[in-house]
């Protein structure tokens, strides 16, 4: 069953996707499955192991459940400071 998700993209991911955000309907249950779908769709080069994920502005595990309407952000390796 597909759910509607709001995706926001930052840094290298935004460059590769070519947009800052979008709403997608996808048959995925977890961020892990979602990222695999995005990799296929956009040819993303970042390995899933190098990413963290935030759902509704909170860090969550990559295998946590996704719900209809969630906002999902994959976090490339950070480099502040």
């Amino acid at each position, binding site marked *: 069953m597909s759910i509607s998700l709001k995706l926001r993209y*930052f840094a290298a991911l935004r460059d590769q996707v070519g947009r800052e955000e979008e709403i997608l309907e996808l048959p995925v249950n977890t961020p892990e499955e979602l990222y695999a779908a995005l990799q296929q769709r956009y040819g993303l080069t970042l390995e899933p192991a190098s990413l963290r994920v935030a759902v509704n502005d*909170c860090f969550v595990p990559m295998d946590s459940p996704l719900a209809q309407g969630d906002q999902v*952000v994959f*976090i490339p*390796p950070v480099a*502040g400071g």
Partner: protein
Amino acid sequence: MFQLSDQPLDITALRRQMQHPQAGAFASFEGWVRNHNEGRAVFRLAYEAYAELGQKEGEAILEEARQRFDIIDAACVHRVGALEIGDSAVWVGVAAAHRDAAFAACRYIIDEVKARVPIWKNETYPEGDSGWINAEYRATED
């Protein structure tokens, strides 16, 4: 107080906010934009942040520092947007009764901010190319 700022940091004002009459020690750290990184000259630099999560994560780090160390006050401000060579990209200030706690908390905060706050650095080189600085490089960075 954690803040993401798109304006140059006013270090004098930030320091003044940390002054408390019971504070005997003040440690601070700044990350400055260098004219080179990883052996390449840097022409321009910009930070991008996932602001909503960055704010929460920065506040969490300051709260952790207050729990772990015997300090009076701690603050951190990180720039976002375009920076110039020599600009402060990040400022951390810690006031404490004694210097052990001030140094330890200051170090804790900058280490955690660099490791956890969702901020990304994009460098432009004189040759015209640019790139997102990967955290894999961070072991040798400032």
